[in-house]
Protein backbone atom coordinates (compact mmCIF):
# COMPACT_ATOMS: atom_id res chain seq x y z
CA UNK A 1 0.00 0.00 0.00
CA UNK A 2 1.40 3.39 -0.99
CA UNK A 3 1.34 5.89 1.90
CA UNK A 4 -0.66 9.05 1.22
CA UNK A 5 1.76 12.01 1.34
CA UNK A 6 0.97 14.87 3.74
CA UNK A 7 -0.44 17.94 2.00
CA UNK A 8 2.08 20.80 1.70
CA UNK A 9 2.19 23.14 4.73
CA UNK A 10 0.02 26.23 4.50
CA UNK A 11 1.86 29.52 3.91
CA UNK A 12 2.25 31.48 7.16
CA UNK A 13 0.15 34.41 5.90
CA UNK A 14 -2.68 32.01 5.18
CA UNK A 15 -2.34 30.45 8.64
CA UNK A 16 -2.55 33.95 10.18
CA UNK A 17 -5.66 34.84 8.21
CA UNK A 18 -7.49 31.58 8.98
CA UNK A 19 -6.54 31.64 12.67
CA UNK A 20 -7.91 35.18 13.06
CA UNK A 21 -11.18 34.01 11.50
CA UNK A 22 -11.40 30.90 13.70
CA UNK A 23 -10.56 32.82 16.87
CA UNK A 24 -13.97 34.48 16.68
CA UNK A 25 -15.60 31.07 17.24
CA UNK A 26 -13.52 30.00 20.26
CA UNK A 27 -15.63 29.49 23.39
CA UNK A 28 -13.75 31.69 25.84
CA UNK A 29 -16.05 30.78 28.73
CA UNK A 30 -14.56 27.25 28.65
CA UNK A 31 -11.05 28.70 28.59
CA UNK A 32 -11.74 30.94 31.58
CA UNK A 33 -13.12 27.97 33.54
CA UNK A 34 -10.06 25.88 32.65
CA UNK A 35 -7.66 28.64 33.67
CA UNK A 36 -9.14 28.50 37.19
CA UNK A 37 -8.02 24.85 37.47
CA UNK A 38 -4.56 23.53 38.31
CA UNK A 39 -2.58 21.80 35.55
CA UNK A 40 -3.26 18.44 37.19
CA UNK A 41 -6.99 19.15 37.37
CA UNK A 42 -6.96 20.01 33.64
CA UNK A 43 -5.31 16.69 32.80
CA UNK A 44 -7.72 14.76 35.05
CA UNK A 45 -10.58 16.50 33.26
CA UNK A 46 -9.08 15.40 29.92
CA UNK A 47 -8.95 11.79 31.14
CA UNK A 48 -12.60 11.94 32.23
CA UNK A 49 -13.51 13.42 28.86
CA UNK A 50 -11.70 10.52 27.17
CA UNK A 51 -13.63 8.03 29.30
CA UNK A 52 -16.88 9.76 28.34
CA UNK A 53 -15.96 9.73 24.64
CA UNK A 54 -15.06 6.05 24.85
CA UNK A 55 -18.39 5.27 26.50
CA UNK A 56 -20.23 7.17 23.75
CA UNK A 57 -18.32 5.19 21.10
CA UNK A 58 -19.25 1.94 22.84
CA UNK A 59 -22.90 2.98 23.01
CA UNK A 60 -22.82 4.00 19.34
CA UNK A 61 -21.39 0.63 18.32
CA UNK A 62 -24.03 -1.18 20.40
CA UNK A 63 -26.83 0.92 18.90
CA UNK A 64 -25.77 1.26 15.29
CA UNK A 65 -23.66 -1.85 15.02
CA UNK A 66 -20.54 -0.14 13.71
Amino acid at each position, binding site marked *: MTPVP*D*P*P*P*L*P*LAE*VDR*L*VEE*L*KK*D*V*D*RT*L*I*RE*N*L*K*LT*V*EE*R*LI*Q*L*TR*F*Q*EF*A*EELRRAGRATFGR
Partner: protein
Amino acid sequence: MTDFPGLLRALRKEKVRFIVVGGAAATAHGSARLTLDLDVVYSRTPENRRRLAAAIAPLAPALRGAPESLPFVWDERTIRSGLNFSLSTSLGALDLLGEVAGGGRYQNLGNDTETIHVFGVDCLCVNLDALIRLKRAAGRRKDLETIAELEAIREEREKTGLR
Protein backbone atom coordinates in the same frame (compact mmCIF):
# COMPACT_ATOMS: atom_id res chain seq x y z
CA MET B 1 -7.90 5.42 26.26
CA THR B 2 -4.59 6.91 27.26
CA ASP B 3 -3.36 6.67 30.85
CA PHE B 4 -1.52 10.01 30.99
CA PRO B 5 -0.38 9.63 34.62
CA GLY B 6 0.86 6.09 33.94
CA LEU B 7 2.85 7.11 30.87
CA LEU B 8 4.41 10.14 32.56
CA ARG B 9 5.35 8.06 35.60
CA ALA B 10 6.85 5.31 33.41
CA LEU B 11 9.06 7.86 31.63
CA ARG B 12 10.11 9.61 34.82
CA LYS B 13 10.82 6.32 36.63
CA GLU B 14 13.64 5.64 34.15
CA LYS B 15 14.70 9.30 34.24
CA VAL B 16 13.96 9.79 30.53
CA ARG B 17 14.62 13.35 29.36
CA PHE B 18 11.54 14.49 27.52
CA ILE B 19 9.27 17.49 26.91
CA VAL B 20 5.49 17.22 26.74
CA VAL B 21 4.19 18.81 23.53
CA GLY B 22 1.02 18.50 21.43
CA GLY B 23 -2.49 18.12 22.75
CA ALA B 24 -1.54 17.19 26.31
CA ALA B 25 0.60 20.33 26.53
CA ALA B 26 -2.35 22.31 25.16
CA THR B 27 -4.54 20.82 27.91
CA ALA B 28 -1.95 21.75 30.53
CA HIS B 29 -2.17 25.34 29.28
CA GLY B 30 -5.97 25.39 29.48
CA SER B 31 -7.23 23.97 26.19
CA ALA B 32 -10.70 22.44 26.23
CA ARG B 33 -10.03 20.20 23.23
CA LEU B 34 -9.89 16.42 23.44
CA THR B 35 -6.62 14.67 22.69
CA LEU B 36 -6.17 10.92 22.58
CA ASP B 37 -2.41 10.52 22.77
CA LEU B 38 0.63 11.77 24.64
CA ASP B 39 3.22 13.50 22.44
CA VAL B 40 6.73 14.00 23.80
CA VAL B 41 9.99 15.23 22.32
CA TYR B 42 12.82 13.10 23.70
CA SER B 43 16.55 13.68 23.92
CA ARG B 44 18.53 11.64 21.36
CA THR B 45 21.63 11.10 23.50
CA PRO B 46 22.75 7.45 23.75
CA GLU B 47 22.06 7.41 27.50
CA ASN B 48 18.55 8.76 27.01
CA ARG B 49 17.82 6.33 24.20
CA ARG B 50 18.70 3.49 26.60
CA ARG B 51 16.46 4.99 29.29
CA LEU B 52 13.62 5.39 26.82
CA ALA B 53 13.97 1.80 25.66
CA ALA B 54 13.86 0.58 29.27
CA ALA B 55 10.90 2.78 30.19
CA ILE B 56 8.67 1.71 27.31
CA ALA B 57 9.70 -1.96 26.93
CA PRO B 58 7.40 -3.20 29.76
CA LEU B 59 4.41 -1.49 28.11
CA ALA B 60 4.18 -3.88 25.12
CA PRO B 61 4.93 -1.18 22.54
CA ALA B 62 3.85 -1.66 18.92
CA LEU B 63 3.87 0.66 15.92
CA ARG B 64 0.43 2.21 15.72
CA GLY B 65 -1.35 1.39 12.48
CA ALA B 66 1.27 -1.13 11.32
CA PRO B 67 0.21 -4.67 10.41
CA GLU B 68 0.54 -7.05 13.36
CA SER B 69 2.67 -9.31 11.21
CA LEU B 70 5.31 -6.59 10.82
CA PRO B 71 8.26 -7.50 13.05
CA PHE B 72 9.01 -4.82 15.62
CA VAL B 73 11.59 -4.91 18.37
CA TRP B 74 11.64 -2.05 20.85
CA ASP B 75 15.18 -1.41 21.97
CA GLU B 76 17.90 1.24 21.90
CA ARG B 77 18.96 0.15 18.41
CA THR B 78 15.48 0.69 17.03
CA ILE B 79 15.34 4.16 18.58
CA ARG B 80 18.79 4.99 17.18
CA SER B 81 17.76 3.85 13.70
CA GLY B 82 14.49 5.78 13.75
CA LEU B 83 13.44 9.23 14.87
CA ASN B 84 9.70 9.67 15.43
CA PHE B 85 7.61 6.74 16.67
CA SER B 86 3.83 6.52 16.94
CA LEU B 87 3.29 3.73 19.43
CA SER B 88 0.39 1.92 20.95
CA THR B 89 1.24 0.71 24.45
CA SER B 90 -0.55 -1.00 27.31
CA LEU B 91 -1.07 2.51 28.74
CA GLY B 92 -2.38 4.01 25.51
CA ALA B 93 -1.14 5.95 22.51
CA LEU B 94 2.29 7.52 22.82
CA ASP B 95 4.10 9.57 20.17
CA LEU B 96 7.84 9.81 20.72
CA LEU B 97 9.33 12.61 18.66
CA GLY B 98 13.05 12.95 18.07
CA GLU B 99 12.36 16.10 16.11
CA VAL B 100 9.37 18.37 15.73
CA ALA B 101 8.53 20.83 12.94
CA GLY B 102 9.37 24.39 13.94
CA GLY B 103 11.15 23.35 17.12
CA GLY B 104 13.88 21.01 16.08
CA ARG B 105 15.18 18.59 18.69
CA TYR B 106 15.03 18.31 22.47
CA GLN B 107 18.05 20.54 23.02
CA ASN B 108 16.58 23.28 20.81
CA LEU B 109 13.45 23.49 22.99
CA GLY B 110 15.34 23.91 26.26
CA ASN B 111 14.48 27.58 26.68
CA ASP B 112 10.87 27.10 25.68
CA THR B 113 9.72 24.87 28.52
CA GLU B 114 8.30 25.12 32.01
CA THR B 115 8.25 22.48 34.71
CA ILE B 116 4.82 21.18 35.63
CA HIS B 117 4.15 19.02 38.68
CA VAL B 118 1.46 16.47 37.83
CA PHE B 119 0.48 13.10 39.26
CA GLY B 120 3.41 13.16 41.65
CA VAL B 121 6.10 13.80 39.04
CA ASP B 122 7.87 16.86 37.66
CA CYS B 123 7.83 17.07 33.86
CA LEU B 124 9.02 19.58 31.32
CA CYS B 125 6.19 20.97 29.21
CA VAL B 126 6.61 23.23 26.21
CA ASN B 127 5.43 26.74 27.08
CA LEU B 128 2.40 28.34 25.47
CA ASP B 129 4.30 30.66 23.12
CA ALA B 130 6.47 27.82 21.83
CA LEU B 131 3.48 25.51 21.44
CA ILE B 132 1.77 28.11 19.24
CA ARG B 133 5.01 28.56 17.28
CA LEU B 134 5.35 24.78 16.70
CA LYS B 135 1.76 24.43 15.53
CA ARG B 136 2.12 27.43 13.21
CA ALA B 137 5.37 26.11 11.74
CA ALA B 138 3.79 22.73 10.99
CA GLY B 139 1.25 24.59 8.81
CA ARG B 140 -1.27 21.75 9.02
CA ARG B 141 -4.92 22.48 8.33
CA LYS B 142 -6.02 20.22 11.19
CA ASP B 143 -4.12 22.42 13.67
CA LEU B 144 -5.78 25.71 12.74
CA GLU B 145 -8.60 25.50 15.30
CA THR B 146 -6.10 24.47 17.97
CA ILE B 147 -3.88 27.47 17.16
CA ALA B 148 -6.91 29.76 17.36
CA GLU B 149 -7.79 28.37 20.78
CA LEU B 150 -4.18 28.61 22.04
CA GLU B 151 -4.00 32.24 20.96
CA ALA B 152 -7.32 32.88 22.71
CA ILE B 153 -5.85 31.27 25.87
CA ARG B 154 -2.87 33.62 25.67
CA GLU B 155 -5.18 36.61 25.38
CA GLU B 156 -7.36 35.40 28.27
CA ARG B 157 -4.26 34.90 30.43
CA GLU B 158 -3.17 38.45 29.75
CA LYS B 159 -6.66 39.75 30.44
CA THR B 160 -7.37 37.79 33.64
CA GLY B 161 -3.89 37.20 35.08
CA LEU B 162 -4.77 33.51 35.42
CA ARG B 163 -2.22 30.89 34.32
